[in-house]
């Protein structure tokens, strides 16, 4: 048996432990927001978080996640109402086109902003170059990340008596 903490829920699964997390999430848990793109960790469409870190779920066997926490696009708001600031920024910048890669793009971006609240262009290049977009939305993704960073920083600014 494999135990997964997925988007806050605990699930026990009787499955082949070598099955990549991607297929467990999509086929066994019915969470289809995480996408299959290449199967060899080249495109990033399958990106989700394992204990908060972005991983390529198409090459990570589910046994590596036994007892660990997985977050997918469906759980990115962590139970809070509304959208994650990055999701809102994606709407504001009208980022997605076909949209297929965007769950993976967002999961990479969420992880980036979680560890770096003011990323430079070079930081964004580094964090996001593992995610391919065939519709060419890179410019808008860059803008979306900067917009979301600004929103998040404004929300956490400590008011001063000035």
């Amino acid at each position, binding site marked *: 048996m494999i135990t997964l903490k997925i988007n806050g829920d605990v699930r026990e699964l009787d499955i*082949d432990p070598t*099955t*990549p997390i991607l*297929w467990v999430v999509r*086929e*066994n848990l*019915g*969470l*289809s*927001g*995480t*996408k*299959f*793109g*290449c*199967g*060899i960790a*080249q*495109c990033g*469409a399958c990106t989700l978080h394992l204990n908060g870190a972005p991983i390529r779920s198409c090459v990570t066997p589910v046994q590596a996640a036994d007892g660990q926490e997985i977050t*997918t*696009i*469906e759980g990115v708001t962590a139970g809070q109402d509304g*959208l994650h600031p990055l*999701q809102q920024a*994606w*709407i504001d910048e*009208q*980022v*997605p*086109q*076909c*949209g*297929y*890669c*965007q*769950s993976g793009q*967002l999961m990479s971006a969420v992880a980036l902003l979680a560890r770096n609240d003011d990323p430079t262009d070079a930081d*964004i*290049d*580094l964090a*996001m*170059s*593992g*995610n*391919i*977009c*065939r*519709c*060419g*939305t*890179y*410019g*808008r*993704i*860059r803008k979306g990340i900067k917009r979301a960073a600004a929103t998040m920083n404004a929300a956490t600014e400590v008011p001063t008596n000035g």
Partner: protein
Amino acid sequence: MGKWTRRAFITTGVLAGGAVVFGVAIRRGNPVHKVSEFMASENETMLNVWLKIGADNSTTIIVPHAEMGQGVHTTVAMMLADELDADWEGVTVVEAPAHEEYANYALARGFMAGDIEFPEMLVDTVNGFFLMATQSMGLQITGGSTSVQYTGELAMRVGGASARAVLLAAAAEKWNVNVSELQTEKSHVIHSPSARRAPYAEFAADAATLSQSPVPVLKSSDQFRIMGTSVPRVDVPAKVDGTASFGIDADLPGMKYATVMAAPVFGSVVVDIDTDSVADMPGVRKVVNLDDAVAVIADGYWVAKKALDRLGITWSETDNAGREQSDIFDQFAGALDSANENGDNNDDFAAGNVNDGFAAAEQIVEAEYRVPYLAHATMEPMNCTAWMRDDQCELWLGTQNPLGFGMEVATALDIEAENVIVHNQYLGGGFGRRAFGDVAVQAARIAADVSYPVKLIWSREEDMRHDHYRQASISRFKAGIDSAGRPTAWLNQYVEKHDPEDAPHIPYNIENQLIHFADSASHVPWGFWRSVDHSLHGFFKESFVDELAVAAGKDPYEYRRELLEENPRFRDVLDLAAKKADWGSPLPKNVGRGIAITRSFGTIVAQVVEAEIVDGGPRARRVVCAVDAGFAMHPDGMAAQMESGIIYGLTAALYGDISIHRGAVAQSNFHDYKMLRMSEAPHIETHIINSGERTGGAGEPATPAIAPALANAIFDATGVRIRELPMSNTVFPDESLESKDVA
């Protein structure tokens, strides 16, 4: 009625001009009652087949095209909503079902057979423009950048305006006032003299009984309220929270999973399958022989894939198995040579006499260019879910051609076309690939073997190796230029013509022209690839005209400008791109600037690229794009399509290379068929001209210009002229990378 070939279908758009078109949106008898049965619920009234109004005064717009990221569900719906004077906030968009009132089976059968007998009921006049319009809607095909040009202009606007007219008539009747005293605003009818204002819903039932005009008065552009604005796209919210349902996300009760391997060498078939190795594998359900492919059905994709990899499959040997990419290029070169020797080139375009032009020339310039095969590599690998019950087959997938796929499946299963039901989903990229029904036929044949629904998913490797590829080609040029540098003759010979017809043609004022081609078929399957033939000819033509500018000792922008003196619409687009890019201003050391201009699918695009060599390879750092599509219905959507077309073309220019080894595609995944990534993506800016000319497309026209604009920029930076794609194969000699003086 004339017969129309498949090529005629695709190319008739270029014949369009000034025709009075009617009857597309509002067909004789306005067959709305047939549609209402299944399209409208109790609280809704259908006004015509594209439109229903709810009791809550909401508007539902029915769009006969697939959403693949181009924003079509938003843009063409805007066109109807604007003519209707609907409240955009209350608009819902749904995709038209493959029902006979939307999808014309007779037409599709003719299309699939390669010739079309046009049913009388659909048309009052048949000309190329009309045919294209009716077919792209009636066949529900999404491709050729047609949705806004044809469906939007001819169905949606007409449908919206006609519906508004009957709503007004019904209101005038009910209020007993003159219709000329009525106005409309945000889904309300207003009678100012009596200060009355009522929602459309109040008049919808009466309006539905009135006859609608096929030739309503349309708004002029200064009356637009929604067209020309960048409303948020309707499909975006579902694409940021994981809820958007693509073909691959179909989920049915009792569904199993399958994956497939087709014969690696195109043309081979299955000789033998050794299934012993998978006999005891838990979760494996069945091995299916599809003649030219083998599929495994299992409880999950992963098990199916593991089992497929273990199978021992023997494929038939064919002559194709010895073919290498170099053989194919040798064959192309041989075909060009022999067509010249035998005088049997196919004519494409001719003007004046090129021999006279060469005789008058001071200088002769010659060049040969080559491009490779290209795969589409949509992010969502090919997939289709099929469920066969009794004699009915249901399909769930993303397709650019639901009706055509249905026809193909019906033929393969030998059932009636009406018994194939296609549930179209969001497309995870199309680019032309999802116009080919191979995966649907495979899924249907697999499902026909079992009682449960089956989701067939191709591996990325299968997707890469069994695409329908953009053709490889060779193009040879010879031009004469006079003492002033002006071209006196333009001779172009190339291999393989597909569509659109005008792709090799040039906008430049050159008196003597001969453009012709040789056929040279290969065993590699051909397919529509974003901008189709423009994707190669854009590179060929705009690279060679740049070479002429260099030979003439002129600035490449000024040179093109002079040759466009009789083509002001092109010149305006070229000028805008050059101006916005600050053409002629100093650049940093080792950075070059290049320009190119193309017209495709009714839209003119000019691009200026700033480029340099980074880590031994070309890199575009900035792209300035100017576009004239007549009128940009959704300016931000237009900009998004320019960005998208540029990145798609840039990826191909830099890296795209499908090559044949032992008869099969050598590449298999993104490690050897490289994609442009975030760190290499240029800064792109788009500038729009609304010239008021006939509306053109947006999805494809940005792709053709980027490869030549980049190649021309690299020439400017290094002095190396790139005549073969992809550019990643270009070797830059050390001296080309030495610092050049800043001008």
